[in-house]
């Protein structure tokens, strides 16, 4: 997967996180931890559901590790890696 594809995933996640948090997508920084942006358990599960619908990846059953899920950037990498392994 090339850099451009990761960028597309990241931009898509920024839009989704902005919608969940009712924020302007321009204010969403991909490197800021989701909990610092005000995301809670419910919002996070909503995001995982959107990821399943968009990318056909069910992440709830994975370990939900901090390294993979803490920021939009790390989450984009996780999704990219799963797509690559298919």
């Amino acid at each position: 997967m090339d850099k451009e594809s990761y960028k597309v995933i990241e931009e898509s996640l920024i839009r989704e996180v902005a919608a969940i948090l009712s924020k302007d997508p321009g204010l969403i920084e991909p490197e800021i931890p989701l909990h610092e942006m005000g995301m809670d358990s419910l919002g996070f599960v909503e995001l995982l559901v959107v990821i399943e619908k968009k990318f056909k990846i069910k992440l709830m059953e994975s370990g939900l590790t901090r390294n993979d899920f803490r920021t939009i950037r790390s989450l984009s990498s996780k999704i990219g890696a799963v797509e690559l392994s298919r």
Partner: protein
Amino acid sequence: MIALPYSKSKRHLTGIDWLVHVLNHMTIKETGAGFMSQVVIEVAGDVNTFEIGNALNTFIKKHPIVNGYFSRDINLAPYWKIPPAKKSEISLDTVTVKEGESFDVILKSLEKGVNTLFKNKREHIAFHILTGGGRSYIAMTFDHLLFDARNAEAFLNMFQKEWDGRENFGNMVFTEPAHLSRWMDKFKAGQRVNRAFIKIAGKATPRVFPLPSGKKGFKFRVLSFGRKETEAIAENAFNEAGYLMFMPYALAASVYALHEIFTGRGISSGDYVIPVSIDTRKQEEITKQLFFNHVSFFIFKAGASDAGNFQGLLKSIKEQMYTQVKSDLPGDICKASLLMRIAPASLLGRLLKLYFKGEIASFCFSYVGKTAYTSPYFMENKITNIFHMPRIPVPPGIGIFFQQSNEKLNVILSYLDGMLSKDEEEIILTSLKSRLGVE
């Protein structure tokens, strides 16, 4: 004169507001007092009760909505009748605390406040102030007909902002449409909720504690964790449940703790059914939707056979949460409940019990994230903690409530007096602390 839908003298009730009226009716029937709660602001230093009383009176008189009451339109849509500005004073009682008084004594006094009936159908908030010995507690008992837990905090936060001279919130207009259109959407949502509830309910009655006889008040235990302990609990939640999975973790810990008591009493029939209230608003929407209830629910089922296995329990709760978010059960409950507004509270109370064979739930659970009271002060005094003392709807009459204030976690056990023994109360708290990893 015909009141307009967006009139200043009325605000239509949503389906969830009506559901709260039903729970209020059921709770009054069983206990003599309604579905009320209390938010307690603990501050450093003694307070001037006269000054607080005056400031609260001035503020609350600007919001006649707090003295409203239920009524119905000619088309039967229920609404909150907002009277003209109030002239009478707020209810406020004060208690002097002795130096070094134990928290148990303070809690007993606070319990008295939250278990006291409002004076009449127009009173929905009352204040109790405990002060002396270098610390004070400002408690606002509130009717859930008027506020959910976060709104009660936000209302006091608004008072503080006015006190600080930062903002003036007078002449607010709160509107809600009558929701008398798009019936097919509501019926379809009702169908989905019905199917989901039947599936969750299963064939057996949920596992419940028997209700004590007579009209009893609620008892409370408050576990307040310091900043370091709260951080340790968050870390444990992350390690055991995953990133941002605190709510499922806290719920699993609560089921695990209560399971010990059921097992100890030899109650072995049925599974656990737990309604979990969730806020349906974003943080910035709180001040725009300051009054009434902006919550919906997840309904979790914990198999009795899984309840002693924490990891299995956690996995099942996470899966159910995911499935219910995916099918938008909380959204469907909001839509479907709009259909129920036609039914009188007494009838609807009976209908709700049909799903769960005469019961409602095993216990109630709620996790209110960070407090909506953002100021570090109450008037001039530094806040040391904010916690809630909710009277749980009866049935089930018992619940566990997690809430955060100033990066400190509070866990509150609330139950109908006589439902648990002193030993059982201790077992629950010890088990919760142990499960959260902060013995």
